[in-house]
């Protein structure tokens, strides 16, 4: 019998099993994503060919179509034009079209950025303040208030879509960045308060007491001592909030049309000639995936520690 390892350590067989399960799971979840990325690099024809092409000649047509508006022209007209100035014009003309201007995608994408990061910041900031108060002060009816805050997540947010639609129209918040930031913040705040309260509870109150003795006010102590130590929790909470508001679709369809429309309701509306322009949709979705991915990778170190909810200190 092998006595070189401790009883608590898993055997090499169970380690291998675990690795196998993770690999299978990763493959299953990665297939749709890789298919989407592949589609974004196909041309319109190979995207819908049957049987599906796994090996194909990569093309940037999807990305060009995503960022431009085009119109079909007759061959005579195309011949009368001066030679194309750059590669994407050439690509478009090979399809007997000319670029008529930039598409709305960049605007929608930056709307998503503003609303996503704005509401994430607001949720985490307000959530941290509320969580600190719940964690440290004797708040009257504390448990009831916490339950009430949580109860706002006991129904799907879309259940209140109609009253919110009417409210937003009356208040003039419909189709505005501020309106969407407020809405996503409201939805995320309960999660943020609960998550962050757990983290705040883990931070010994001696730290801010020490800071207060050192001459700082409670608010200064909160910013200089408590927040840096709650970074793990803040990172985890920020990622959850960001994922929600970045991906949110239903409210965005309902409440935004022109000014504040985010990317999720916009991408499926990219229509090509004679059907959906799958490579362009694939390109939009791929680009849409990047910010959350980068955001998560940046905060990953904190997230991994944060997910365990401070079960193990240090």
């Amino acid at each position: 019998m092998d006595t070189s390892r401790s009883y608590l350590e898993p055997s090499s067989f169970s380690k291998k099993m675990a690795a196998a399960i993770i690999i299978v799971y990763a493959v299953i979840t990665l297939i749709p994503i890789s298919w989407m990325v592949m589609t974004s690099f196909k041309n319109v024809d190979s995207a819908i060919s049957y049987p599906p092409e796994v090996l194909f000649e990569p093309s940037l047509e999807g990305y060009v179509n995503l960022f431009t508006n085009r119109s079909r022209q007759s061959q005579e007209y195309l011949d009368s034009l001066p030679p194309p100035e750059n590669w994407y014009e050439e690509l478009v003309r090979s399809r007997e079209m000319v670029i008529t201007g930039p598409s709305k995608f960049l605007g929608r994408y930056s709307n998503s950025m503003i609303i996503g990061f704005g509401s994430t910041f607001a949720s985490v900031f307000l959530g941290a303040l509320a969580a600190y108060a719940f964690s440290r002060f004797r708040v009257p009816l504390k448990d009831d208030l916490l339950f009430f805050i949580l109860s706002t997540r006991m129904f799907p947010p879309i259940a209140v879509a109609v009253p919110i639609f009417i409210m937003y129209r009356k208040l003039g918040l419909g189709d505005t960045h501020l309106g969407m930031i407020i809405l996503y913040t409201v939805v995320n705040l309960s999660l943020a308060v609960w998550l962050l309260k757990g983290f705040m509870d883990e931070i010994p109150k001696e730290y801010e007491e020490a800071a207060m003795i050192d001459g700082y006010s409670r608010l200064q102590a909160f910013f200089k001592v408590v927040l840096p130590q709650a970074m793990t929790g803040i990172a985890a909470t920020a990622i959850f909030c960001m994922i929600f508001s970045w991906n949110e679709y239903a409210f965005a369809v309902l409440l935004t049309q022109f000014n504040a429309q985010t990317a999720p309701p916009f991408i499926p509306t990219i229509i090509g000639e004679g059907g959906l322009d799958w490579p362009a949709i694939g390109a939009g979705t791929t680009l849409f995936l990047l910010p959350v991915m980068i955001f998560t990778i940046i905060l990953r170190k904190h997230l991994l520690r944060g997910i365990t909810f401070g079960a193990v200190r240090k």
Partner: protein
Amino acid sequence: MSQIKIVNLQKSFGDFTAVKNSNLTINDKEFFVLLGPSGCGKTTTLRMIAGLELPTSGEIYLGDEEVGMLRASERDIAFVFQLFALYPHMNVRNNLSFPLKMQGYKKSDIKNRVEEAAKLLRIDHILNSNISSLSGGDRQRVALGRALVRRPKAFLMDEPLGTLDAEFRELMCLELKKLHLDIGATTVYVTHDQLEAMSLADRIAVMDGGEILQADEPNIIYNKPKTKFVASFIGSPGMNFFEVNEGISKDQSFVNIEGVKFDIPKQLEESKGSKNFFGIRPENLTLNNNEGLKGSVFGVEYLGSRKIITVKTSLGEIKVKTDISVNTKLNENVQVKPINNNIIIFDGETDKSLNSEFIK
């Protein structure tokens, strides 16, 4: 540096009174220890002096200023926490600079003062280290340093040696004492460890149940305790008590216990009731075979140069601290008698010691 004075200080948490009507004067430059079992109110008292708790009633003077209701940040005191509370996201230098930054010192001044304090505490070689890489003793020194750089009116310490292991605690005890002699700052130190209290303190206040029972120099606390609790809490083991089923009158100089006559110091005060206690320290008792209380040896503990013999008598267990050369066997019949007249009579009704020739 300042005198600290608390007047009629009281603190309640709901129905529970943590500190009852306490009065205390801590002199300038004194090393003052608040000693008591857990839950006795010593930490609450300290936290009220620091401004981390607000008193329910009463006043706290720091120098001439009444600070009872001021915020901690406005009091100019330093506090060393039991768990050090060093900011883990800053290195040692930033931890030490943190209080100075708030006070608006110039960068060069901060640097000088931090390095001065670091030198004094011999942590100048680890100024750029992370807190998490430090040993317990170094963390303790950094915590002291953070208190020191401010040059505050007073130092408050809440069991700062509690988390160190025994060997290190002794060393830090010495260092603390030396540091106090070097800088001569008014210090209030909370502990439940009587050895720490005895070795550090200029004066000790013994607390129990939210009350200050006695505040005196260590040797007076030990030899002339004012209440039965102080007598039993201080000393290892604590004082022995025998029940005396008679009233004590003025000028009385002996009592009868279980038919044995014991000399006591001449009493200057009479007792309130007819049930009192005869108190004697274990080292003031000896074993012999012909006089004193009869009993049998119940246990023997070796302490190196001394040993503690527990004798089971009809009055209960009596601890006797004797020379290592005394030979006894378990269950051997022995008799216990005092070797001197350092005996205190405690009033059975008030638990307070009665004045006598020995304790005035």
